[in-house]
């Protein structure tokens, strides 16, 4: 009968080595292009305002960001350190998407469990997902207060799409895998724990990718309105006193935070997918 596919060849052939080299070159090209785009962007951002082609008051420039960052590091009686602001934003985002994941899995499991519940709630979920949640920022502020309204917005903006994504992942499980579990007499709870949930791990990671980004958006928008802490607040504050350096520093840190989140989730994805 047939054997396991891969049979390692003792000495790699020249064709294989050439193929490997082409692979490596291709990979290098992608990375180099990514870096080049970033460099071109930064150079234009630096040069255009300095050459007065665009108004430097409106855009600031990259070389101004570092001194601004350093000066913002110190906390003053009026203003805590930028690290405190960053931490507040990161914490609210993590709480937001963790809450959205937990609530999303729980609600999706309930919908999977009861088709009647799904039929009843389906239109409400779709409409709730389509609502512009940011319109609720002022209401959340009144209802929940300064800090909780930000957590609330972070959750609200990401939870509905999370529910819908995870539920559709649950629905996508091969019904024959469920039938297989039933032939062994599995209860509904066992089917959920042993088939549906572990089979939906790729969907869970995809949902996490989407809702981590959305949660950050929710936090920053919430901070615009209601906070005295956080990068959203700092950006709002900078624009009110017309200091573009502060605004751009805040936005740059946001970009760095979302890059780190992207890296963390990619790493998690790779770790999870190694089993498949």
């Amino acid at each position, binding site marked *: *009968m*047939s*054997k*396991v*596919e891969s049979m390692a060849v003792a000495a790699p052939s020249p064709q294989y080595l050439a193929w490997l080299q082409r692979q490596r070159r291709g990979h290098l090209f992608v990375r180099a292009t990514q870096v080049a785009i970033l460099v071109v962007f930064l150079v234009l951002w630096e040069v255009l305002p300095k050459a007065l082609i665009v108004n430097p008051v409106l855009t600031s420039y990259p070389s101004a960001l570092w001194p601004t960052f350093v000066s913002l590091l110190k906390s003053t009686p009026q203003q805590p350190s930028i690290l405190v602001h960053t931490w507040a934003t990161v914490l609210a985002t993590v709480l937001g998407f963790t809450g959205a994941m937990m609530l999303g899995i729980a609600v999706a499991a309930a919908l999977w469990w009861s088709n009647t519940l799904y039929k009843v709630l389906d239109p409400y979920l779709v409409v709730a997902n389509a609502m512009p949640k940011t319109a609720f920022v002022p209401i959340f502020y009144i209802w929940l207060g300064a800090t909780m309204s930000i957590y609330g917005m972070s959750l609200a903006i990401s939870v509905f799409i999370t529910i819908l994504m995870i539920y559709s992942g649950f629905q996508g499980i*091969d019904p*024959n*895998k469920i*039938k*297989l*579990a*039933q*032939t*062994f*007499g*599995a209860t509904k709870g*066992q089917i959920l724990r*042993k*088939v549906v949930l*572990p*089979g939906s*791990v790729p969907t869970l990671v995809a949902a996490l990718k989407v809702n981590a980004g959305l949660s950050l958006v929710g936090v920053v928008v919430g901070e615009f309105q209601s906070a005295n802490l956080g990068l959203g607040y700092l950006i709002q504050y900078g624009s009110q006193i017309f200091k573009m350096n502060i605004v751009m520093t805040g936005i740059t840190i946001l970009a760095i935070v979302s890059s780190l989140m992207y890296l963390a989730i990619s790493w998690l994805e790779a770790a999870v997918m190694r*089993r*498949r």
Partner: protein
Amino acid sequence: MAASAIAASPKVELRDVSLRYFGLEGETEALKGISISIAPGEFVAIIGQSGCGKSTLLSLISGILMPTDGAVLVDGKPVTGPSRKVGYMLQQDYLFEWRTILENTLLGAEIQGADMAKARERASGLLTRYGLGQFLHHLPRQLSGGMRQRVALARTLCTEPDIVLLDEPFAALDSQTRLALADEITVILRREKKTAILVTHDIGEAVSMAERVIVLSRRPGRVKSDHAIRFATADGARPNPLAARNASEFNGYFNTLWQELEVHVEG
């Protein structure tokens, strides 16, 4: 007297079983008035064209589905739900890609809350016997189709069922693997003295593997005919499927069954 009474009592019995599926567009009759009696240790094949309710019949015996009319009995007792006595092998392996081969084999034992230490020992024993000993901790994607289907057999037999239901278990395999695996699985099931019910639309598979072939009519499925398959051998033992295909009786049975199925195409 007592011994003959036990021998005569069927392992699986269907009494005038009918099944109708309900949909908003109306009801569909899948099976009608089916009566079949299967003795302990018997290997029965059920053939019929696609859509004649063959798979439905197995779902009824396994207790996943309940009949609309009539009764299904296993060991003389009505079936009320999935039973540990019945193992079910589906058309494809449906191995869970996130579980290793050993963990896949243990699925049934886990669900049934069996003694896991014993189950683990039994599972690795079965897998080793089926030539998969060095792949216990591999993932399904690392195995070929034939190997995966043997894991599925180990998973079915790990919970020690008396009755094994086979729903076109070779349908997804290439023809060479199919012949080899049919031979292997038949030998294993006979050696372990399981009562086996094979559903297939492959006449050759039915004649070579089973000692009795039941033909179902088109939807709604009814029992059209019931054939005993006998091969004359020197030692009187049943030949293995590959040998049976070369026996002189094979073509006769094949043609008889072929004609019976052909009738339905016209009718």
